[in-house]
């Protein structure tokens, strides 16, 4: 295994991008070429990543590059390899699904355009994760941001798309500005844009290091979607084509996490305050993310808020890791960073699954609103089954994968290594709240969508999508179960990645993680037995009922004899107790027309929860700034004569000043 395999993988992806436009007039051929390039690229790339995670070493790939200060240096260490796994797995699953999705949404999407930017995005992420030169890294980062922008805008004439694209691109460039400064300062200190040189020239504890950390936190945090700079996610994710939303939510935002972890791996010493910062960000992103998700009716917007919640859980793991590094406790550092990395992988699996499911529901219903659906479990059995598995996984329920990484976070927080630090205990309580609220949110969304009776004709006529869209979901659901039941190899790989961040030998990390491997094995076994025991009970019940009378009847209406589908509990009413309890944070806008009189004719209820940062702070602030600056606008009216006059006036002013 050499680096040439990685180059080959990128070449496959590049070929996919290159072929997409020339072949666009041959739909069948272009589809097969696309699938071939995608499979070739992702399988090759995945084999490289797995080789490194199994303990293999790869040489560094170097090539001259005409860009000033730039050099193409690519390397795969365990940290890069761990991020390559979700890039390639999600890239393949969502890409294959995407072919079915493009086929099904013919007329709305331009296949060549979506394919081109999809390949470009995947290749750029691979380059960003493997780059060891800051110029190359920033170039890949920018290509990634732009390719994602074009994917977000793929359905442009539709309402809301251009606004979402604009918010996205502004956020990305605000972030990238911070990164330019960060790498410029680090590069100037090192005298080279090479990562190895930068690492050697990192400043010791002090003001410079704090400033660099702040820049990294801002620049990468926007990408990751930390509260309060999260607001582009719920705008951009819903409007993109669903397989692109899956990639955005499952891997693109994780690039922000990768950047932060790579930055931490540069730092010779990590102050304890960074750990506390991450714990605070994690708890606030987690709780606010899930609370705002609870208030949404748009399925993809809800999932986008859940990405913020999960990024919060990842940040909790990173906080633990930093505390471990600061206290010179490699075991705690390993558990923290391994938990963060494992949750990166887990979230990418179940979030892709959920977004792919959401895409199928969206196509079947023609709407992303959960309130109008219902009864899809009967009509779209497979898509619904896989989505429920994803929902259980994202709620952190055993025997699925989400539980394993959340358990690792808990065991780091409460396992005693921290000596009962207040921050750790409060974070654990926050994590418990997040988990319980997530369960409320997903029973709400998927209950309204898939259970009960259909509330409209679209839901009544819905059908499962084609095989090309179902198989990726099936495999992702299976992967969630496998990681949950047999977590050992995944935790060990994550520990290797953690060793790279903490700069200790992999053997140290593996021995640190040895303590949690036995509990994890038991957790997997108990989770599997929960399923097994449920199966036995099911068989027992079937056996008992075989000898008895089993009747089918309408649902018990508590005495009311002619119920209709519209009388079912809605998602909004389901979330109401929690929404009311957290009203102070959510501040929903409600339009309510109450029924009145003895024979009420009209009644309506509409609720909307604006985003905390974007709708409550940024947009009003920018509107106010615009109002103030309106005075200045008077001098700008587009007439050339006046502009020439300004130039002349300026020249005269300069002349007078120089006299």
């Amino acid at each position, binding site marked *: 295994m050499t680096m040439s395999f990685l180059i080959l993988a990128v070449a496959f992806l590049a070929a996919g991008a290159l072929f997409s436009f020339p072949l666009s007039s041959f739909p069948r051929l272009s589809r097969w070429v696309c699938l071939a390039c995608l499979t070739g690229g992702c399988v090759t790339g995945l084999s490289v990543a797995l080789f490194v995670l199994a303990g293999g070493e790869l040489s560094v790939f170097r090539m001259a590059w005409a860009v000033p200060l730039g050099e193409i240096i690519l390397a795969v260490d365990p940290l890069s390899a761990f991020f390559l796994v979700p890039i390639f797995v999600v890239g393949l699953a969502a890409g294959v699904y995407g072919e079915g999705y493009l086929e099904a949404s013919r007329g709305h999407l331009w296949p060549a355009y979506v394919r081109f930017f999809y390949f470009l995005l995947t290749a750029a992420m691979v380059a960003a994760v493997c780059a060891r030169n800051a110029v190359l890294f920033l170039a890949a980062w920018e290509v990634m941001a732009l390719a994602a922008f074009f994917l977000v805008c793929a359905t442009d004439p539709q309402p809301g798309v251009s606004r979402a694209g604009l918010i996205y691109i502004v956020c990305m460039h605000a972030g990238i500005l911070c990164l330019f400064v960060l790498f410029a300062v680090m590069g100037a200190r090192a005298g080279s844009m090479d990562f190895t040189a930068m690492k050697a020239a990192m400043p010791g504890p002090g003001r410079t290091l704090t400033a660099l950390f702040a820049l990294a936190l801002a620049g990468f945090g926007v990408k990751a979607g930390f509260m309060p700079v999260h607001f582009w996610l719920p705008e951009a994710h819903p409007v993109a084509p669903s397989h692109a939303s899956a990639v955005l939510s499952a891997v693109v935002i994780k690039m922000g996490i990768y950047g932060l972890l790579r930055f931490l791996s540069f730092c010779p010493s990590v102050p304890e305050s960074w750990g506390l910062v991450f714990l605070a960000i994690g708890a606030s992103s987690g709780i606010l993310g899930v609370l705002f998700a609870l208030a949404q009716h748009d399925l993809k917007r809800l999932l986008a808020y859940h990405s913020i919640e999960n990024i919060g859980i990842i940040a909790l793991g990173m906080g633990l890791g930093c505390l471990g590094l600061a206290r010179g406790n490699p075991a705690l550092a390993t558990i923290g960073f391994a938990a963060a990395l494992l949750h990166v992988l887990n979230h990418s699996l179940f979030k892709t699954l959920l977004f792919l499911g959401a895409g199928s529901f969206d196509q079947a219903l023609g709407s992303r609103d959960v309130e109008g659906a*219902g*009864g899809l*479990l009967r009509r779209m059995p497979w898509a619904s089954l896989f989505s*429920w598995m994803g929902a259980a996984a994202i*709620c*952190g*329920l*055993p025997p699925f994968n989400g539980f394993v990484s*959340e*358990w690792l976070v808990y*065991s780091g927080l*409460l*396992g005693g290594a921290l000596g*009962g630090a*207040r921050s*750790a*205990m409060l974070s654990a*309580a926050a*994590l*418990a709240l997040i988990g*319980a609220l997530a*369960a*409320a949110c997903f*029973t*709400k969304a*998927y*209950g309204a969508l898939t*259970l*009960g009776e259909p509330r409209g004709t679209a839901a009544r006529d819905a059908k499962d999508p084609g095989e090309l869209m179902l198989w990726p979901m099936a495999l992702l659901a299976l992967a969630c179960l496998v990681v949950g039941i047999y977590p050992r190899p995944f935790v060990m790989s994550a520990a290797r990645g953690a060793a790279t961040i903490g700069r200790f030998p992999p053997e140290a990390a593996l021995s640190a993680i040895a303590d*949690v491997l036995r*509990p994890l094995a*038991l*957790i997997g076994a*108990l989770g599997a037995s*929960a*399923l097994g*025991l*449920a*199966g036995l*009970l*099911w068989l027992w*019940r079937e056996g*008992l*009922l075989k000898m*008895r009378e089993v*009747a*089918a*009847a*309408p*649902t*018990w*209406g508590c005495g009311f004899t002619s*119920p209709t589908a519209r009388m*079912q*509990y809605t998602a909004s*009413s*389901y979330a109401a*107790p*929690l929404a009311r*309890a957290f009203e102070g944070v959510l501040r929903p806008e409600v339009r309510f027309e109450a029924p009145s009189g003895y024979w009420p004719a009209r009644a309506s209820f509409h609720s909307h929860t604006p985003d905390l940062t974007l709708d409550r702070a940024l947009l009003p602030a920018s509107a106010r700034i615009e109002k103030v600056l309106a005075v200045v606008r008077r001098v700008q009216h587009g007439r050339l004569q006046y502009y020439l006059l300004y130039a002349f006036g300026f020249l005269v002013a300069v002349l007078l000043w120089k006299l």
Partner: protein
Amino acid sequence: MSAILLAVCAHLAALLIAPPLLLGIIAKTKAAFGGRKGPPVLQLYHDLFKLMGKGAVYSRTTTWMFRLGPVLSLSAVLLAGLLVPLVRASPFSFTGDAILFAYLLGLSRFVTAAAALDAGSSFEGMGASREVAFASFAEPALILAVAALARAKGGFTLSVMFSGGIWSSFGAGLVLIVGSLFLVLLAENSRIPVDDPATHLELTMIHEVMVLDHSGPDLAFILYGSSVKLLLWSSLLVRLILPVAPGAGGWVIWGLGVAAVAVIVGVVESSMARLRLLRVPQLLVAAVCAAAFAVMLTLK
């Protein structure tokens, strides 16, 4: 080897056989307060036996989710029972099992709520909504109590954390934890003042209304599962308060303690009314605060 086997058998036997008795004791206590004779203590065993022999009625709206709810819920609760120490330390305990315990109960709640929504009735939706909402407040209380105990006991397994004997060193904290966990017990097991299992009006129910459409063996699984859950919580509380040592004496103390918890639940139910639904979160936030104060007491 045989000692371990015996311990496992005793654990399983207590876990599987004892639970329905607790609900009988509660019912008897309530009857005594009401001046009635009340159903026999073993009534639930008869009910379960009868339900297992009955047929079932399924709503035409329901799917496999409705049938999955009772079995997976019971299975999750039983596996959670393997982690909870009864008289001896649990044979399956490991570091961090408290988290698995909490999340297995979460799994049970998740599938029960999903099964309730599957029937497509407003009433069952209402019950599910309330159940998940109240659980969101109960969960942090449990984890904070676990955090405080893990710190006070220096271990992160249920068997170590819930092993009594720290009244002298950590008395005040223990009072707070016991109070907090008792409120969580009432909420998790749908007892007054959070929920009224004996109410006759669907609008005011929480847990009972979620399972309105289940019948026959399904209903038996659900009833049995909730009695197991009550036993697990009672056992945790008893072990926190009383010194339960392995051996025959331990079994007596444990048995009396668990029965006493059931009596106390019965007394609470007889002496107060169910709270208004809007007040329930406040009660549970009080439980969270009590546990948080206990955490603070562990910080020296």
